[in-house]
């Protein structure tokens, strides 16, 4: 197998049945959209939609020293959560650069499940193994588990019917193992859309059956498959960062606005470097901006102040919920205050953008 081979998701033929347009993402052939990005986006904001995000990495961390190990390599504090809860945080390098952003699910004492980004999965795996010492076992479940994200205000209704138990009371970031078709599956009240929603980690062998059950039960809520196009607009509206675009090994959590994921009251890899940077102050900062008129700022476009390039757009799109162009980008800290203005170069023209408060969109009940 060559490194450049594009992998297909286990449910690829199901996506074909839904008439997906495909795109490439981190070496995977994934659905871009099925009908229209805007329609799929609205389905998730107003009712319910299903994403196949099985391209993401899945790693079990177990053993008597699993908690100690994760406390060292993971920026957020695991003792904040109990069994049946999940937490978002970062893997940092010794310089404080972001190696990956991950969600850790606590399944039991010294039993954890980590979901990592597809593009960094192999590096994460090697990195975790390099930092390993006794009492911890890592298990890569890439091939054996599928991930379906059921997202939107109607997702508890749909899952309650599929699994015959009540999903309405699940707090955000809780998780539970349940049995479906005689197989153990893990469900987390997590997602990448800013809506109420769940991610279901199920053995590949039953995933087709599961997908069909979800669509059968979801029919009365006009459930629909949602592609990576809407995944990007949904996550950007609520300012969930995309690894490799809005942050990478050269950016620190202080620059990316992710300091809240770092618990400085414990020791963790990268902490010393971050404390030093905190003292010195950060030079660049990730800002949220909107472009009132003149086009859509997209990934890679230059940010200018007068005639000087001061930064770059890391993510940018048209927000289907707000009906305007929004985006993220790094600029020198002096230009990062809410209300600051700068130019973004769209097709050789300078277009005015304004720093605004994030998230751009917040779900209101």
């Amino acid at each position: 197998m060559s490194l450049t081979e594009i992998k297909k998701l286990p449910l690829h033929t199901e996506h074909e049945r839904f008439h997906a347009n495909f795109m490439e993402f981190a070496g995977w052939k994934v659905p871009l959209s099925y009908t229209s990005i805007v329609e799929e986006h609205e389905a998730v904001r107003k009712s319910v939609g299903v994403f196949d995000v099985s391209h993401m990495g899945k790693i079990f961390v177990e053993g008597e020293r699993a908690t100690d190990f994760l406390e060292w390599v993971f920026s957020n504090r695991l003792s904040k959560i109990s069994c049946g809860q999940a937490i978002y945080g970062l893997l940092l390098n010794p310089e404080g650069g972001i190696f990956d952003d991950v969600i850790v699910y606590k399944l039991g004492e010294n039993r954890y499940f980590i979901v990592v980004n597809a593009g960094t999965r192999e590096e994460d795996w090697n990195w975790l193994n390099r930092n390993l010492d006794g009492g911890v076992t890592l298990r890569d479940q890439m091939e054996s588990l599928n991930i379906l994200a059921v997202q939107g205000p109607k997702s508890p209704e749909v899952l309650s019917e599929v699994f015959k138990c009540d999903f309405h009371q699940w707090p955000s970031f809780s998780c539970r193992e349940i049995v479906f078709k005689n197989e153990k599956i893990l469900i987390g009240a997590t997602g990448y859309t800013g809506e109420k929603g769940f991610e279901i980690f199920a053995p590949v062998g039953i995933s087709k059956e599961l997908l069909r059950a979800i669509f059968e039960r979801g029919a009365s809520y006009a459930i629909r498959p949602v592609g990576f196009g809407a995944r990007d607009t949904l996550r950007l509206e609520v300012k969930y960062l995309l690894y490799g675009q809005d942050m990478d090994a050269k950016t620190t959590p202080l620059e990316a606005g992710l300091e809240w994921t770092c618990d400085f009251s414990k020791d963790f890899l990268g902490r010393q470097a971050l404390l030093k940077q905190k003292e010195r102050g950060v030079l660049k900062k990730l800002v949220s901006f909107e472009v009132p008129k003149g086009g859509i700022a997209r990934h890679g476009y230059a940010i200018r102040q007068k005639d000087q390039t001061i930064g770059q757009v890391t993510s940018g799109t048209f927000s289907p919920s707000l009906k305007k162009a929004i985006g993220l980008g790094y600029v020198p800290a002096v230009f990062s205050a809410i209300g600051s203005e700068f130019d973004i170069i769209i097709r050789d023209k300078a277009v005015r953008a304004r720093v605004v408060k994030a998230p751009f969109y917040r779900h209101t009940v």
Partner: protein
Amino acid sequence: MNFPKTLKYAKTHEWARREGSSVVAGLSEYAQKELSDVVYVELPAIGREVKQGQPCAVVESVKAAFDVYAPVSGKIVKVNKTLEANPSLVNTDSYGEGWFFEIDPSTSGEWDSLLDSGTYESVLQESAH
């Protein structure tokens, strides 16, 4: 897909229609479907001289920005301002209210170089393989 026989087409997926001595242009249904969700349109200035096959307008969907090419050379005499406020007309009525601009052609020969609907469809089929 619908490609009216009364229109001519460019390989770059614009349609063209003669109206008196000028040529009205827009995007074909194929282009409209490929783009999906048009959210922004940038039109040429009236009076601008354009050349056949050169970009003269921009259309942005949620996913990306694309150029719209002039089907014939000439001077821009009218643009569809309604698109600026209502870009989704490109999706909902690509051959009607979704027109982009009108050109006063500088030569007559270019019209004949455009494709009829049958030829355009076969070009689309070839590129699909």
